[in-house]
């Protein structure tokens, strides 16, 4: 089940999730939550991806579209680059382990995002920096359990362990266990109030996997706003240059 | 008409448990134009009788009529008004208002009587001349001798044209010459302007000059002599 890896690496979320589920389901017929996560953890390393997506951001006062190219390696390395609009073309975000760097093409400068800003919006969208970073430790941070199995739809609830340093008070997933794709993720704060939700749709076959092509994030307190991410291309069979995920490469791209 | 008329007039002081009859059933009539003296030793009741007649004190019993008006029934303010218009006071200690000049002390009476300012000088200056005070009108009491002060007091008593002048031991603080001088002037005013005077005094000079001598002893009239 656990696609949190996906959730966490927001940009890539749906892709990774599907992949995890696919592999997990091979070894575990009737998955229990933790076992599923563990399976994902161990088999996930080393995969590379390259893709393009269109990000549509709608807020109370403006709407804009970003075209983004992205690369990933495992769960620790991620690089995004804005292709459009032209004014922002070349602006990159690099994530390596827990660090995030932004390269601002217009002024040819790079800034490092400090850990205190992980809750901040990423590029004005409804994603946060934290979504890019907090990744591979979901099973260590949250107590996972299958709350409900309704036909092919499984509902899994994640509650943080008492001493875990986490952002959410609760996470709820809905997964299509037949096709092994995510349907919905809801995020709650410590008071149990829903903060935002992520909805997946347009499931497509990509190579051996089934992937939702569209993810939409809606903040609970501003239901008229959202951020939509639509994959235009995604390729898991790529070889990536060795120094791709480095500061030096940001400027050169 | 009688200027002063008292009937069975008494004034009793409470001195501890003892009653002191300062004035005891006095029947007295003073007529207009008289120049009379209440004579008698200290404590005989002269001053008390004078105060009763002047409306400064209230009788324990009996009545006082002043120019036909009964003083007994008047309120304090009415008595003050009666004193202003009907009585001129001359005190032993002169008692001029220290912050006013001689002229202003006299004028004071006209001002509180409400006499228009335009008439003041015409009424005051002849009076001061008559009393030998010309040239001194701008002096304050402290700049005047006792005799001069008492003459200012006389002018102040007369200027308001009262029915009667009550003078309580007016010569007691004066030297002999001043006293005689003062008495002569008052006598002249009596003769020429028909001003009625009632003194209280045990000064022989006063008694000598008076037309009528009313002797008091223990609050009673013991003798009433008119000279002719």
């Amino acid at each position, binding site marked *: 089940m656990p696609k949190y890896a996906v959730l966490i690496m927001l940009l890539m979320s749906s892709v990774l999730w599907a992949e995890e589920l696919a592999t997990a389901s091979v070894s575990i017929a009737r998955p229990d939550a933790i076992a599923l996560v563990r399976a994902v953890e161990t088999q996930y390393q080393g995969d590379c991806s390259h893709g393009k997506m269109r990000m549509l*951001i709608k*807020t*109370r*006062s*403006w*709407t*804009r579209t970003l075209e983004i190219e992205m690369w990933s390696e495992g769960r620790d390395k991620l690089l995004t680059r804005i292709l459009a*609009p032209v*004014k*922002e073309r070349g*602006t990159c975000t690099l994530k390596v382990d827990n660090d995030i760097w*932004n390269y*601002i093409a*217009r*002024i040819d*400068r*790079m*800034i*490092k*995002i*400090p850990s*205190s*800003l992980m809750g*901040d*919006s990423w*590029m*004005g969208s409804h994603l946060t920096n934290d979504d890019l970073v907090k990744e591979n430790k979901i099973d260590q941070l949250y107590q996972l359990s299958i709350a409900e199995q309704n036909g092919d739809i499984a509902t899994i609830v994640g509650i943080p362990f008492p001493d875990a340093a986490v952002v959410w008070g609760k996470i709820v997933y809905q997964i299509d266990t037949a096709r092994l794709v995510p349907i919905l993720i809801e995020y709650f704060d410590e008071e149990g109030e829903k903060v935002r939700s992520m909805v997946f749709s347009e499931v497509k076959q990509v190579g051996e996997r089934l992937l939702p092509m569209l993810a939409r994030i809606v903040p609970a307190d501003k239901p008229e706003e959202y951020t939509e991410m639509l994959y235009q291309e995604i390729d898991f069979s790529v070889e990536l240059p060795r120094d791709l995920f480095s*500061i030096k490469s940001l400027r050169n791209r | 008409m009688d200027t002063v008329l008292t009937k069975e007039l008494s004034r009793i002081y409470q001195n501890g448990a003892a009653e002191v009859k300062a004035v005891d059933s006095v029947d007295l009539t003073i007529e207009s134009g008289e120049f009379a003296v209440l004579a008698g030793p200290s404590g005989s009741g002269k001053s008390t009788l004078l*105060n009763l007649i*002047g409306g*400064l*004190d209230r009788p324990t019993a009996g009545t006082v009529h002043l120019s036909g008006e009964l003083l007994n029934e008047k309120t*304090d*303010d009415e008595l*003050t*008004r009666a*004193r*202003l*218009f009907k009585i001129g*006071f001359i*005190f*032993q*200690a002169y*008692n001029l*208002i*220290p*912050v*006013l000049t001689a002229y*202003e002390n006299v*004028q*004071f*009476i006209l*001002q*509180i*009587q409400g006499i228009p300012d335009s008439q003041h000088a015409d009424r005051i200056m002849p009076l001061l001349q008559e009393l030998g005070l010309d040239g001194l009108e701008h002096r304050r009491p402290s700049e005047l001798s006792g005799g001069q002060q008492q003459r200012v007091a006389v002018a*102040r008593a007369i200027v*308001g044209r009262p029915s009667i002048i009550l003078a309580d031991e007016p010569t007691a603080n004066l030297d002999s010459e001043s006293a005689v001088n003062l008495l002569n002037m008052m006598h002249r005013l009596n003769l020429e302007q028909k001003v009625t005077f009632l003194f209280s005094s045990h000064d022989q000079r006063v008694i000598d000059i008076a037309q009528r001598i009313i002797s008091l002893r223990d609050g009673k009239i013991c003798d009433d002599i008119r000279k002719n």
Partner: protein
Amino acid sequence: MVIWRIAWRNLWRNRRRTQLTMGAMIFACAMLVFSLGYYDGFLWSLINNATEKENGHIFLARPGYYANPVLEDTVSENISAQLPTAVKEQVKGVCPRLQAYALLSCGTGQENRTQPSQIVGVDFQAELANSKLAGDIVAGSFLSGQQREILLGQGLARKIKAELGSEIIFFSNAADGSIASEILLVKGIFSSGDNLRDSALAFMNIVDAQQLLALEGRVHSHRLFLHNPMQAREVAEQINDHQKAIEATPWQTMFPQIADILQIWFAIQLFTVAIYYAAMALITFNTMYMAFLERMQEFAVMQAIGLTRRRLARLILLESLILATVSGLIGMMLGASLNIVLFYYPIDLSRWLESISWGGSSIQPVLFCVPSLLSNLLPLLAMILLGFAVAALPIWRLYRLKPVEALREV
């Protein structure tokens, strides 16, 4: 009138006593005027310290912006047309401001330091004319209107290791959602005394900020400075009645603690007046009462020769009132002069005393007074009342006085 003459001359009978009494009364009155002026000055400082750097006396913005500032909630930078005429006369100056959240970053490679900051775009000329912002500069200089200038709070500069002339990377989202980025140069570093504020605050020219944030011609707020800050609430009401598209928030709402103080201020003033005059009354009452007692016999004579008690009472009252009023007027003039001098030339005591932060403002160790009608008239009024009070007992005695008894005391 002769009563006046007597009253006036009586005052000068015992010249020394009158002078001493008057001296004490003048001193008390002057001190009181000064104290009240100082209180007002203290309050003004409190208000000004609270308002001059931040929000002005009145904060004008879109309805709701003050409580919940949102980047997109802007108003026109031309505010003058939106104010009622009556209000304009009360306004000393207007400072437009644009406010945004941004990342400020300094240094390259691993030395790069980034801090989230409050960025305030200001009209440097308006700020120089109206606010004390420029007075906080501790290094470099204030904005001069040149392009790409930025002023950093001392704490912020320390955090991102920036110095004068350092290159600062500005990174944020503009009002249209686009990425706002610019390289700015540190023109000055300021310290307001509020470390928390200074560690996350920067100022830049409003024109630059408008361009960067895609808000040309727009501002978030106008801060009005009034000739009389005490009028802020009334002026704000006038604006709110007149203009629904903007919301005026007076400093009383922004700094309720100071407003609360103000509410009890009048009571404090009255209390002070009462204490002063209780002391004054004891001093002057005694001398004046003695002066009257000495003259009881004189009063008796006046009564005997025809002055009614009512007129005598008027005489006593007149004497007392002349003394009180003359003393009060002189004292008022002395105190007011002192206040005016200290208003224009406050005395700085910061060498001996430290300032204190309180209620969103700070209390500065400055001897500063504000002359006001109330602080001038209240002591005079109290002095006149004292005149009545001092006359009351002799008059009461007078009404019980029997002339014949007073005369006998010769």
